[in-house]
Structure formats: C-alpha cells, structure tokens
C-alpha cells in the first residue's frame, strides 16, 4: 500500500508540513514538498484531528425516511467528522445488545466514520426500568455512553442507579436535562418573547434544576455524568461550580446554541424549533465563554433530521430538531475562532480530543503526531460557502441556515488513514 501525503498542510494552523500516512497511521511529518507517495494538495489548509460528535441522531432503525446510517455517515464525513455517537431514540430503541450491534455493524460496513451507538438508560426510554446496560457494554459495539436523549431520566432514584451501575463498565450517563413537569407542551424559551407570542415557555430552570441535581448525585455515588446540549447561562454556572468541587462532570453545547437566539421564533418558522429551545443572547454569550474556558468540554451537533412534512406546518405541530453535522465546523469558526475565543488547538480539543475522551473512544481524538491513528480533517479557513439545504448529504433538509453564508470549508477528511472526503466531496 502506497503512502498518502497530505502536502503542505498546517497542523493546528501552525507551520506547513507534509503529513505522511501509512496503513492508517501517521508515519512521518516532513518538511513541505518532501513527502513521497500519493500526493493530496493541502497548501495553506489546516489539519485537525477528525471531529468526534457525541450527539447525533441517525434515525436508523425506524425512521429511514428522515436519515439512514449511510446518509448520516456521509453528512458526518463531509462535516469533518470521523466518529459520531448515534443516539438511542430509534425505533426500536437502542436498549438491547441486538440493536446497538446492528447499528455498529452497519456503520462499519459503510466505513465512512466510526458509528458509536449510544445505549438507552431505560427500556424504551420510558424512564421506569434500566436497560441491559451491561449487555450493551459487553457487546461488539462496546457501548460506553448511555442516554435517554429526547427524554430526561427524571426519576432521581433511577438516575442514581444508572450513574452507579455504569461505573462497572467505565460508562457515562449523558443526561438530557429537562424537568418534565416544568416543560409540558413547551414550545420555546420562557421569557418576555414567549409571553408576547403566546407560546408555552420552556424555562431555563427546568434544565438547570436537573443538572444541579445530577451533579450532586454523580458526586454522591462517585460516577461520571455528561450534560447534553447545555443551553443556559445558569447551567454553565452549575457545571462550573460542580467542576470546582471535583465532580466528574462534562458538558456539551450544540452549534445552534452558540449562534442562534430565540428572536427567530417570532417568524413562527418551525425550522427554528428545537429542544432545548433557542435561548437569549446572554445565554449564547455565556455558552461561548464556557466553551472557551473549558467549562463546557465539547461541541456536539444534536443533528436531528426530520422529514419535510414535520417542518412544513404550523409551529405547534412541528417536530423539534435541526440538522447540524455539515455546518458544525463553520458555526464554531464563526462563533469561536473568528472572535478569538478558541485557537485551532482549542477547536481540536473541543471537537475531537475531549469528545473522544468523554465517549472513551480510544481510536479517536489523537494528536497529529507520528504514531497517531490517521483520523484527520483538513479545512480551509479562508474559504466561505453558502448553505443550500437540498445540497446537504442528509436525507432531510431541516437546516436553520438556508442561504446563510459561513466561513470555513471542510476540504478533506481521512478516516483510519483512508480519504472519505476529497475536495469537499465523498471520496
């Protein structure tokens, strides 16, 4: 097998080099223009470790009309990801070894990214009985992340047990923090605007109260907690406090919560309907700051494809969620890199290194150095692009960024040393 040479690329935006890949591993880092093998032009482009998404809805099995593991894998690779965690709220729910192994195997066969199934915490996400967490952990899929995402594990005792139980498997409970009684039929962030629009509010306290409870539970039982899609300034404060106490808690923020605010709801266009909802500008700024200072560990897309008819309707009937895989990097660039909140090593840390560590994915999030597995993304920080929903690889088109121009283009992606994306197209 001949070597692949990523020529003239700047790892972490630093000095240009030739990255030489052999058998899936970075074998040499040479002066630019000196590597020998199959040359892939990357002059002036930036290399980062392949992105790892902790929060992806691939919809298969069950809702293949919205997304499949194949189309989701393509969207991920085009977005610079080499690994995604496939959420458990499929149909059937990923609450048995059988389902997670199936998802994992299909992911392997497609071979564009690592598809790491997330196991449900409770049977059918019903919040009453623990799933067979051990069977999923010990399956071929080797599940480490457990979540009822879409629903909150709201029963405090069950949450305590889940946190305790996953310790035996080195697992983590990823909580969708949403107090159910405070958010019945909730449609948008609760505040002045929800009052004016006459919409049922989703108060920040419904998220913050669960996170506060769960960090205390994690501390009490000595387990590991991950907070999904943190959306409020108050949640950031709670997590910061918990980390200062030494609680083993990590957190993620979605690209859309770094960029968009609740004002968009006034259009009543359901493309902006998402759970947790878009929040205020103050929340957005607090989330950016928390991602910059590391209080929030990772960017996670919460990529949530929905068929057209679930969005082309009135707000109250519409499904919650938005696409995220192909726009995540650009949003991070616009909200974090361009304002100087994160440098390129910071982007690598929040989009690859830390999510890989949280998901306990040993093969991902490696530094770009000799001997590392060659999961690599190459981006052009100077190029700009405009989002055309129909041109996204996803089976659905529910992006909130239609016609929006973004900085930052994913040019090449390498998964296990093989190019999966070359020149912005699936290789």
């Amino acid at each position, binding site marked *: 097998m001949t070597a692949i040479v990523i020529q003239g690329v700047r790892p972490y935006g630093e000095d240009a080099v030739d990255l030489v890949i052999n058998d899936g591993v970075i074998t040499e880092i040479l002066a630019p223009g000196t590597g020998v093998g199959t040359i892939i032009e990357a002059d002036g482009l930036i290399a980062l470790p392949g992105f790892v998404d902790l929060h992806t809805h691939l919809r298969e099995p069950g809702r293949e009309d919205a997304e499949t593991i194949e189309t989701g894998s393509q969207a991920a690779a085009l977005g610079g990801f080499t690994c995604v965690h496939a959420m458990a709220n499929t149909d059937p729910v990923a609450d048995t070894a059988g389902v997670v192994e199936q998802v994992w195997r299909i992911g392997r066969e497609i071979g564009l990214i690592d598809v790491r199934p997330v196991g449900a915490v409770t049977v059918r996400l019903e919040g009453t009985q623990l799933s067979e967490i051990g069977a999923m952990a010990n399956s071929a899929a080797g599940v480490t992340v457990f979540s009822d995402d879409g629903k909150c594990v709201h029963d405090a005792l069950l949450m305590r047990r889940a946190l305790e139980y996953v310790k035996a498997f080195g697992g983590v409970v990823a909580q969708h923090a949403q107090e159910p009684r405070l958010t019945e039929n909730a*449609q948008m962030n*609760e*505040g*002045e*605007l*929800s*009052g*004016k*629009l*006459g*919409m*049922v*509010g989703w*108060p920040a306290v419904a998220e913050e109260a669960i996170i506060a409870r769960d960090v205390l539970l994690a501390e009490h039982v000595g387990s590991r907690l991950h907070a999904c899609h943190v959306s409020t300034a108050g949640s950031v404060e709670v997590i910061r406090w918990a980390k200062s106490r030494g609680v083993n808690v990590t957190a993620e923020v979605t690209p859309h919560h770094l960029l968009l605010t609740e004002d968009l709801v006034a*259009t*009543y*266009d359901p493309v902006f309907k998402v759970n947790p909802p878009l929040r205020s500008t103050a929340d957005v700024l607090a989330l950016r700051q928390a991602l910059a200072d590391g209080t929030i560990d990772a960017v996670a897309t919460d990529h949530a494809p929905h068929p057209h*008819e*679930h969005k*082309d*309707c*009135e*707000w*109250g*009937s519409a*499904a919650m969620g938005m696409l995220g895989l192909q726009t995540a990097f650009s949003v991070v660039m616009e909200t974090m890199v361009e304002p100087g909140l994160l440098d390129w090593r910071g982007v690598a840390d929040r989009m690859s290194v830390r999510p890989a560590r949280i998901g306990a994915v040993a093969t991902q999030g490696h530094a770009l150095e000799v001997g590392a597995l060659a999961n690599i993304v190459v981006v052009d920080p100077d190029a700009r692009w405009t989002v055309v929903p129909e041109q996204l690889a996803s089976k659905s088109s529910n992006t909130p960024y239609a016609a929006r121009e973004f900085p930052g283009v994913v040019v090449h992606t390498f998964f296990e040393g093989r190019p999966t994306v070359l020149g912005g197209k699936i290789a």
Partner: protein
Amino acid sequence: MRHLLSAGELDRDTALLILDTAAEMSALSERSVKKLPTLRGRTVVNLFFEDSTRTRISFELAAKRLSADVINFAAKGSSVSKGESLKDTALTLEAMGADAVVIRHWDSGAPYRLAHANWIGGSVINAGDGTHEHPTQALLDAYTMRKHLRGGQGALEGVRVGIVGDVLHSRVARSNVLLLQTLGAEVTLVAPPTLLPIGIEEWPCEVSYHIDEVLPKVDAIMMLRVQSERMKDAYFPTAREYSRLYGLGGERMKLLPEHAIVMHPGPMNRGMEISAEVADSAQAVMVEQVANGVSVRMAVLYLLLGGAKELSE
C-alpha cells in the same frame, strides 16, 4: 394592509380608519336592508380549527352583509397527528379561489404561518390563534369603549382600562394591550401571579394582583373568561377562591365609578369571573360588544378586500 394577524401591527391611523369604517357599517345595520354590494363575487372562507360559534357567525354575518360568498370550513385536529395538515387545507382553499381566509386555530402563530409560508395568495384574518392574539376582538372592544367613553370619536387617550383574569392564556388580553396602547389608553392587568406571563413587566401596561385597588380607577373593566380546568394545573386552588379574589360580583361592582362600563369577550362563566347580577346590570355592555363585533369585522373585510378605494372616493 393585506392581512390582519396582530393588533400590534396596526398603527394609530389604520386602527382609527377601521373604527371609523366600523361606525359607518354600524349605521347600515340600522337600515331595513342591511346589505352592501361591495364584496359581491368575492369569497371569504371561515377556517375554524377550534369551535367558536360566536366568532364564526359574527364573521359570517359581516361577510354576508357585504355580499361576499361565505364558506364555513370546520377543520378539526392538527397536521401530523390528527388529519389533514394546515398546509393541505390552505392549498385546497387556494385552489377554490378564496379571497380571504378567516382563521381560528389552536396554535399560536398559525395565521402568521398561513400568511407567510407561500401556501395561499389571499388575505388572512386572525380570528384567534392559540394563546397569542385575537385582533378583531380588540378592535370591537376599542370601538365599544370609544362609543361609551369618547362619544364615538377619535382615539382613547386617557381612558383607563382594567383587564382581569387569565392573562397568561388570553389572546384577548394580548391584543387589547397592544391596541389600547396604540390608541393612547392606560391599561392595568389584574390577575393572580400564576396567570401572568413571565416578562409581563416589559409589557406596555401596569400590573396588579388586587382587583379592589384597580376598580375605583378605571373607566372600563374587562373580565376575562377563566376556565375552571386551570385548577388542575395549579394556577389557583379552587374556583371558589378565584371567584372570591378576582370575580366581579354586585358588592365589588360598587367600587367602580358610575360611568364605568363592564365588558366581557364571552362566553361568560356566570358565577365564576362575573356574577349574574353584574352581567345583567346597566353598566354591562356585553350585548353591544357582540353587535359591534359584526360592524368591526365588516370594516376589516371591507378594507382588506379592496373596499378601501371606494370608501375614500
């Protein structure tokens, strides 16, 4: 003006034009032949996703008095779960050539969506959307206040209005606050804190938890319907307690100035937010509100469907 979606989008001049036009329309209803040929050949669809006989027949009568063809379309349920979607219904009405769609929908913002999603080309009139707005109700309320308190002329500068009850779920309250502010009135909302939306302090009005402190200072008091089902969600302990603290009964009515009017958008819960004694008193103007509703809706249809030109000529 192409659509009427929110009372907040009416500027002072437009609001006054509607009220003045409504006054002309009201003169018509005193004639023996209560009909104008203005909208002959135009089609008005009443698209009701929620039951509301009184609002529907008010719009129906208004359209018929202007000689429009009226179609009543009662659509139950919601898009994905329960039957035909709003979009498909809209496309159907568009294909049938509706010039105006009067829509009542359980979802806040549905009329806005109907007007802006490129599903239809005609005018959209919001006849009540979820807990958002009910602009023609606010217009008929303003019309009624103007008639009683300002001799049927001009705006409502200095008129003090109390709105009492379930503000949180009330589209009538939202539209009234916006329109009354535009017309120069001073509004005080009265409700238990559980029935006031978060962020109410940013609204262009005063807020009180105590009706007895507000009654002596108003020229009009509007009692909102309170559904006893709200008890289940712990908005208040019992219907009796609500009635005691916020209901308008005969004794409490004595706190009102003599010139003040008592209003209610209907349907009333007699014995809950308003006692029979008050509802049937000389200060109560509920029956007039209903009559004024027809005039105001005639004015809105007339102005939206191209009658404006004729009027100015």
